């Protein structure tokens, strides 16, 4: 998909229908890559066309999409957030501690579960706010500012749990990952809602437009009265909170929280999804639908390689090639 905020100028009727079709096809570069992957799988991968396959892929991609949505906003302002994986671990560690009564005696389970949803997301959001403060108040470069929590954040989660695995069973809490709403897995519904809200925010709201302006030219944005610092704080906070939410989904899905591993390497997956989706890492753009497609492409590549028994080492190489290719197609599409 092309970027949302700047639809390219309409070619002024001088193009032949054929070349217009081509322009159209190549403009949706990531989508084409996505379709190609589907076609390939239908032909090659055993049992690809089934509801269960769709189910598996959608539930697996949900966390990447949720995190990558927040990442898209941060990247749109010209920043980056390396701390998302660690924040997932913190939120993931916190939630079970709440409803398993490690902080205080649980008297009302429903209340405890509600708190287990709310508190970790709020805490992750606050950590995100901390990232934002480093970036805005101290003018520390985003990679380094978020590297602090990338290193320390997981340590905090591990210290909280003493590194121990927390195993639990709690239907209420695990609804977020195991439940179904109208037959659709809850985490897929959650993902859809988040994507839709963010899409609308970018496209239609003032804050959304301001996010893009900050990334496009920060000085100019400030001189037109955009509250640059507040906008940045906002996006880092959202990114943190969404990472926290994704962390909850992961631990709920596994019936276990392992501070050592929850969200490990998520920052790279999320950033790759954003880039494959056509949002420039230099800021000034936010293509949410592209990000979703990018995440789908990455998930499908992973699934394809797994299902076809490609050994890990070779899979890494293939994955690398496909990322480069997808971004390449996407960029060509953007130019035409």
């Amino acid at each position, binding site marked *: 998909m092309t970027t949302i905020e700047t639809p390219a100028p309409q070619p002024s009727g001088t193009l032949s229908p054929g070349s217009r079709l081509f322009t159209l096809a190549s403009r949706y570069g990531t989508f084409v890559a996505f379709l190609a992957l589907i076609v390939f799988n239908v032909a090659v991968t055993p049992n690809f066309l089934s509801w269960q396959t769709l189910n*598996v892929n959608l539930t697996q991609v949900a966390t990447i999409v949720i995190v990558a949505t927040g990442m898209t906003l941060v990247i749109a302002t010209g920043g980056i957030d390396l701390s998302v994986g660690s924040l997932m671990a913190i939120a993931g560690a916190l939630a079970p501690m709440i409803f398993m009564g490690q902080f205080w005696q649980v008297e009302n389970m429903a209340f405890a579960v509600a708190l287990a949803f709310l508190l970790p997301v709020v805490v992750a959001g606050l950590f995100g706010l901390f990232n934002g403060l480093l970036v805005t108040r101290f003018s520390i470069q985003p990679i380094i500012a978020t590297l602090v929590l990338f290193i320390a954040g997981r340590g905090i989660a591990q210290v909280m749990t003493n590194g121990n695995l927390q*195993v639990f069973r709690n239907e209420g809490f695990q609804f977020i990952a195991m439940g179904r709403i109208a037959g659709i897995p809850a985490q897929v519904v959650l993902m859809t809602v988040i994507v839709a809200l963010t899409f609308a925010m970018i496209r239609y709201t003032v804050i959304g437009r301001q996010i893009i302006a900050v990334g496009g030219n920060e000085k100019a944005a400030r001189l037109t009265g955009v509250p640059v610092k507040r906008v940045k704080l906002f996006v880092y906070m959202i990114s943190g909170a969404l990472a926290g939410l994704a962390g909850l989904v*992961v631990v709920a899905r596994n019936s276990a929280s392992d501070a050592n591993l929850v969200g490990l390497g998520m920052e790279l997956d999320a950033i790759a999804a954003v880039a494959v989706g056509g949002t420039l890492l230099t800021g000034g753009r936010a293509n949410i639908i592209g990000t979703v497609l990018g995440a789908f492409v990455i998930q499908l590549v992973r699934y394809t390689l*797994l*299902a076809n028994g490609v*050994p890990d080492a070779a899979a890494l190489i293939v994955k690398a090639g496909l990322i480069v290719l997808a971004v390449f197609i996407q960029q060509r599409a953007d130019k035409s």
Partner: protein
Amino acid sequence: QVPKLEQKDTYKVGFAQTESNNPWRIAQTNSMKAEAEKLGYQLVYTDAAGSAAKQVADVNSMIAQGVDVIFLAPREEKPLIPAVMAAKKAGIPVILLDRSVDPSLAKAGEDYLTFIGSNFVEEGRRIAEWLVKNANGKSKIIELEGTTGSSPANDRKKGFDEAIQAAGGFEIVASQTGDFARDKGRQVAEALLQAHPDADIIYAHNDEMAMGAIAALEAAGKVPGKDVLVLSIDGGKEAVQAVVDGKIAAVVECNPRFGPKAFETMLRYAKGETIEPMIINDDKFYDASNAAAELADAY
């Protein structure tokens, strides 16, 4: 020859851990710390965070700090040789825990004192042997490997695959890495079960991935233990409980509680005893027949 160890009231000992990102390692570290505390020794603990190179640097900093003994849980066989040699040169005896170093380059009783631990190849072989006897006609195996390139992953695969091949009649339909992690293990199992719906055995290189695989099976509407046999290695409490519940068919223990045996060996050496070159933990084996009884003792 291995450097001598004086007999003293208290010691400053070094423990160079390779990483602490899984429950097994954490149990091992805790056991070492607890034992050192019990004996009143000063423990210099380092964590190499999964890097063999850093582990060598860690050992060097222990040498610089003048420890009496070094317990080393080498991340890998070959890259840790320089650490062993440096300690020898500095006159500090080294005891290897849970993984060994390349025998062609360093020898027990010469370059380091001894190796205490399990044999990963053997673990894979034991679980395979159980399977050969108890397969009940099941034959299509999905293997969830540990972290690519790590020695337990390589060895547990080697032992299992060789034994299965030798027995005949089994087929490994897919073998992919799950990084020793529950979440990754689950995701990989989900994908593989889709591509190979006829698979009826899952062999996971550790408990965490086995638990992930069980979640994947349940999500796919299959009954672990009935439709699909799940096999695992490590034998932590959660896994043994799963054996009791019938979800895991069998698990080989790989006990992380090294503390008592490690310090006991060290003291024996200080007293002047000759130490055998290899001390193999007697690891338990859990299946439906003994799991309930042994549950309380599982780590």
